[in-house]
C-alpha cells in the first residue's frame, strides 16, 4: 500500500484502491492512465487473498496491452495465472478457440487479414454481379454494419428504410456464408460471435463472470456498440469493481464506429462514478495550454464542466464534445496519443 501511495498521486491512488463502486476515470492525455490501470490490477492481486479470481484488463490496441503487461510484470504481487491483459479481440479469439463449437462454429478458425477479406469480397461481388464495385468500399460498409451489430438481414432492412439498394447487404450475406464455409473469421466476427456464444450458453456467461470478478477497460471512449454489448455480457450490472478509463476528447476510433453515446450508455448501465485525473505528466505546459484552447472550441459539451488540465498541479479540465470532422482535424494538430495501431 505504501509503495502505491509513493508511486501514485492521491487522485490516482483513490481510483486504484476503490473497490466499493464502479468507476469511470476520465483522464487527459499523459495523466498516467496506463500506470493507473497497471497499479489497479496489481492492487487487486495483492488485496484479494482468495485464489479463485482473475483480473481482466481489456485494451483496444496490442500496444497498450503490451505496455501494460511490461509494467505489470515488474510490480510485486504480480501473478501470471491470475491476469489476462489483452485486446478485446484477443480475449474473444481465445474464448472462441475454447468454445465456438457450442454455437455450431469451428474452434479451429483462421483470422482473416485485410488482404484475405478483400479476396473473399471480390468473389462475393462477382457472385452478385457487382464486379465494378471496388471491394475496399464494400468492406467498409460491411464493417460498419458489423460494429453496429447489424446482421445481413437487419442491414438490408436498414438500407430499405433509407430507400437505398440492398445489394450491399447481399454481398454481406455472401461474405458471411463464405467465411463460415471456409472456417475463417474477421476481426468483427471475434466480438460478435463471442456475444452470440455468451448469449446462447448462459452457463458460460456465468463461468466468465465468476472467473473475472475484476474488470478494467482502457480507452473506453473507443467502445463500439458490439464491444459495449460484450462488456455487458462479461460484467454483471451491479458490479462494484468495474473500472473504465476514458478520454472523451480522444475518440480516436470514431471512424471505427466508436461513439460517445456508447460511453454514455456504459456509464448509465453500470451507474459509473466519475473520477477525474488531472495531472499531466507527459506534456509541457504550453502544449497543454494550446490543447485546452482548442478544446474550448468544441461544440457539444457533455459533462458541462469548465475546467482545464494543468501540469502536475491541482486543477480540472474541460470535457467537451465536438462533431467528428472538427475533432479529427484538431487531433491532426495536437496529438498526444501515440496508440495508432488498430490491428487489435
Amino acid at each position: 500500500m505504501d509503495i502505491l501511495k509513493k508511486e501514485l498521486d492521491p487522485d490516482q491512488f483513490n481510483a486504484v484502491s476503490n473497490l466499493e463502486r464502479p468507476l469511470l476515470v476520465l483522464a487527459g492525455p499523459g495523466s498516467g492512465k496506463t500506470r493507473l490501470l497497471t497499479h489497479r490490477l496489481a492492487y487487486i492481486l495483492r488485496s484479494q487473498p482468495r485464489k479463485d479470481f482473475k483480473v481482466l484488463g481489456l485494451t483496444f490496441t496490442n500496444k497498450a496491452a503490451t505496455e501494460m503487461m511490461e509494467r505489470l510484470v515488474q510490480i510485486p504481487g504480480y501473478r501470471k495465472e491470475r491476469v489476462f491483459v489483452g485486446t478485446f479481440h484477443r480475449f474473444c479469439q481465445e474464448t472462441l478457440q475454447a468454445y465456438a463449437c457450442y454455437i455450431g462454429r469451428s474452434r479451429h478458425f483462421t483470422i482473416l487479414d485485410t488482404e484475405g477479406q478483400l479476396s473473399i469480397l471480390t468473389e462475393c461481388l462477382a457472385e452478385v454481379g457487382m464486379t465494378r464495385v471496388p471491394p475496399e468500399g464494400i468492406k467498409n460498409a460491411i464493417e460498419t454494419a458489423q460494429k453496429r451489430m447489424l446482421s445481413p438481414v437487419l442491414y438490408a432492412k436498414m438500407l430499405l428504410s433509407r430507400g437505398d439498394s440492398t445489394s450491399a447487404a447481399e454481398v454481406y450475406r455472401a461474405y458471411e456464408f463464405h467465411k463460415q464455409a471456409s472456417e475463417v473469421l474477421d476481426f468483427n466476427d471475434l466480438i460478435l460471435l463471442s456475444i452470440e456464444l455468451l448469449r446462447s450458453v448462459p452457463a458460460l456467461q456465468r463461468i466468465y463472470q465468476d472467473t473475472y470478478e475484476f474488470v478494467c477497460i482502457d480507452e473506453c471512449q473507443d467502445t463500439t456498440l458490439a464491444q459495449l454489448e460484450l462488456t455487458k455480457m462479461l460484467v454483471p450490472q451491479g458490479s462494484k469493481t468495474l473500472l473504465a478509463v476514458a478520454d472523451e476528447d480522444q475518440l480516436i476510433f470514431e471512424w471505427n464506429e466508436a461513439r460517445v453515446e456508447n460511453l454514455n450508455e456504459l456509464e448509465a448501465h453500470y451507474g459509473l462514478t466519475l473520477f477525474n485525473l488531472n495531472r499531466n505528466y507527459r506534456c509541457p505546459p504550453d502544449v497543454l495550454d494550446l490543447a485546452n484552447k482548442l478544446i474550448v472550441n468544441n461544440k457539444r459539451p457533455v459533462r458541462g464542466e469548465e475546467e482545464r488540465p494543468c501540469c502536475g498541479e491541482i486543477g480540472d479540465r474541460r470535457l467537451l464534445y465536438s462533431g467528428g470532422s472538427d475533432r479529427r482535424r484538431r487531433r491532426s494538430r495536437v496529438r498526444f496519443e501515440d496508440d495508432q495501431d488498430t490491428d487489435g
Partner: protein
Amino acid sequence: MYISRVHVKNFRCLKDVSFDTCKTTVLIGENNAGKSAVLECINAILGQLRASRFEPKDLHTASKEMLPEKRDPIEVELEFQPSTGTAFTKEEHEVFLKQFDFDDNGLERLRISATYSYDVAAQEFVYEAHFQKKDGPGDRLTQRYTKAIPFYLAEALRDLGREMGTRGGFWGKLMDTVKLSDASKHEIEKLLGDVNAEMLKDKTLNAIQIKLKEMLETVMNLEKVKEGVVISPLAQETTEMVRRSDIYLKAPGADVYFPLTTFGMGIQSVGVLALFRTYVETLGLTNAILGVEEPEAHLHPHLQRFIFGELHGLANQVFLTTHSTFITDEAGLYEIVLLKRKGPVALARQIPRVLPSGKPFLEKTEERILRNYINAENSEVFFAKCVILAEGKSEKLTFPIFAKAMNINLDQVGVSVLPVGGSQFRPFLKILSPPVFDVSCVVACDGDAAKALANTLESLDLVPKDSVKKSLQNDRLLEDVLEPRRCFVVGKVGVKENLESFLFAQGFVAEFEQAISDLDGASSLDEYVQKRDATLRGQGKPAEYHKLDRKQHILDYINDAKPRYAERVAELMTKDGTTDERIPDVFKKVLRAAEAASLAAVKG
C-alpha cells in the same frame, strides 16, 4: 465437483465398462471382478501420491500370446459434475475456465479423456490425456488441472508405516505445511544443539565420534579440525525434525503411549484414513477424491459401519471397494456398483435412477421395500451368484437345511435366500434382473401369490406378452409361465398356504410336535391347551379346547412363532440334513434350479 461417470476400455479385465458414480460409490463384486482395477485406473490419471501410470501389462487381452503392442489402446473417460446444483463453484470456474463442456440442456460439466496406446512410428507406448468437448479435445490434462482434482488411493494393504515414513506419504506432505517462524526456529535449533551436546557427554558416544572423526580425516585428507565430525542424536534442523514427527497413541487402560505404527492392522488402517482426512482438511482440498480398498479390513462389524459412516460423511468424493455386507447395508441403493466377471471380461451393473423416458426406475414405495428388506443380514444378495426370493423368514431358515440334505452347499455355489416380506417380489426382480444387477433369481412363492407373480413377470418383460392370459385359459400357469422362469409355487395355485401350513398339510405333524417339545419343553403343548381352556372359562364359555384334535392344538400353537419351528421341523424331516427322501418336490425343484443357475453364472 465430483466424478459422475466412469467409462473404461481395455484396462486389465475392464474391456468396456461404464457406470454412473455418486458422491460415495461402493464397488462390489467377487474377487478378481475388476473393483481394484477401477480405482487403479482413476489413480493412473488423477493420482497424486505414488500414482503409478499405465503400463503395457495393463492393456486388456483375452490371450497372453498377443503382444502388448498389438492390443487395443486403453481409453478412459471421466465425467465431472458440480457437487451441488447445476453450476461448478467460482474456484472451479477459474481453474477450468476454458475446459468446460455443455450437455444438450446447456448444463456445464467437465469431461476428461485419457488414452494409452502404442505409437508405431515412435516405437513406444504413449499416454495422452485431455479435456473433451463437443467437437473434440480441449487442453491437455496438465498437473495444474489434476492438482485441482487430486485422487488418493488407500490400497487394501494400508501401511501406516509407509504413509508416516516417507516424504511421499500423507504425513510427510502434511508436515511440509508446518511453517515455523524464524524466531521459533532459531530458539528450537539452539535447544536441539544443547540437547545433542548433553547427549555427547556420554562416554561411549563420545568415543565413537572421535574414532569416526580420525578415520574420516585420514580418508578425506582433511586438516585436523576440532569439530569435523559430529554425531547428532536429534535432528539439527527444525524442518527435518518436524518431518520426523511421529504419532503416539495411548492404549486403552494403559498409561504408556506407543507409536501408532506399532498398533494392530485394524487401528493402522483407521489411522491411514484419519491421516487422509486431516490431510485434505488441512490443505483445503475439497475436490480431493479418495479411493479406499476394503475399508472393512481387519475391523469388527461396528467399526466397519463406523468407518463407512465416516467416509460417507466426508465432504470429498469417495470410491470404495468392499466385500462387507455391513457396508453394503449402510450404502444407498444407487451407490452400489456391482462388477461381474463374464469370462475374461468384467461388466458393471447398477440400479439406474431414471429410465430413458425420464421416469424414475424405482418408485418411492419400491425403494422403501428394498431398503427395508435388504439389511445387513440380507445385503449379501449383491454378492450372490443366484438369489432365491421367498416370502418369509421360514424359507430363509429351512432352505439351507434342505439344501444340505440334497448335498448342495449354498455358500459354496453362491446362493442367497432373500425373504421379501410377503409377496412383494416386484422391486427385487426389477433390480436383480438384467440389465440392472443381472443376478439369477429363483422364486418360491405361496399359492395365493402365484397369479400376481406371473403378472409381475409379464410387466417386467421377463415372460412374453399375453402369455399369462393364455396359460390361465389352459390352466397351465405353472408349466408355461412360472416354472420356465424358475418360479415355483408352494402348494396349489390360488390357494392361501404358507411354508408351515404346507408342511403341516404334507403330514409333518409329528415333526412339529417334536419341534415344539425340543424348543419349548416337553410339557409346553399341554400347558398351552390348559391356558386356552382357562381363557375360555374366564370368558364364561365352556372350557372344551382340549377336546379338539391334537393336530389343531399344534397348528394353533405354532401360529404364534412360525419360523422357530420350521427350522427344527426341517432338521427332523431330513434327519439333520442327512436325507432328502421326505423333502417335498417343490423345494427340491427350487434348490436344484438355484444350483443350476448359479453354476451357469460362473460359466458366463
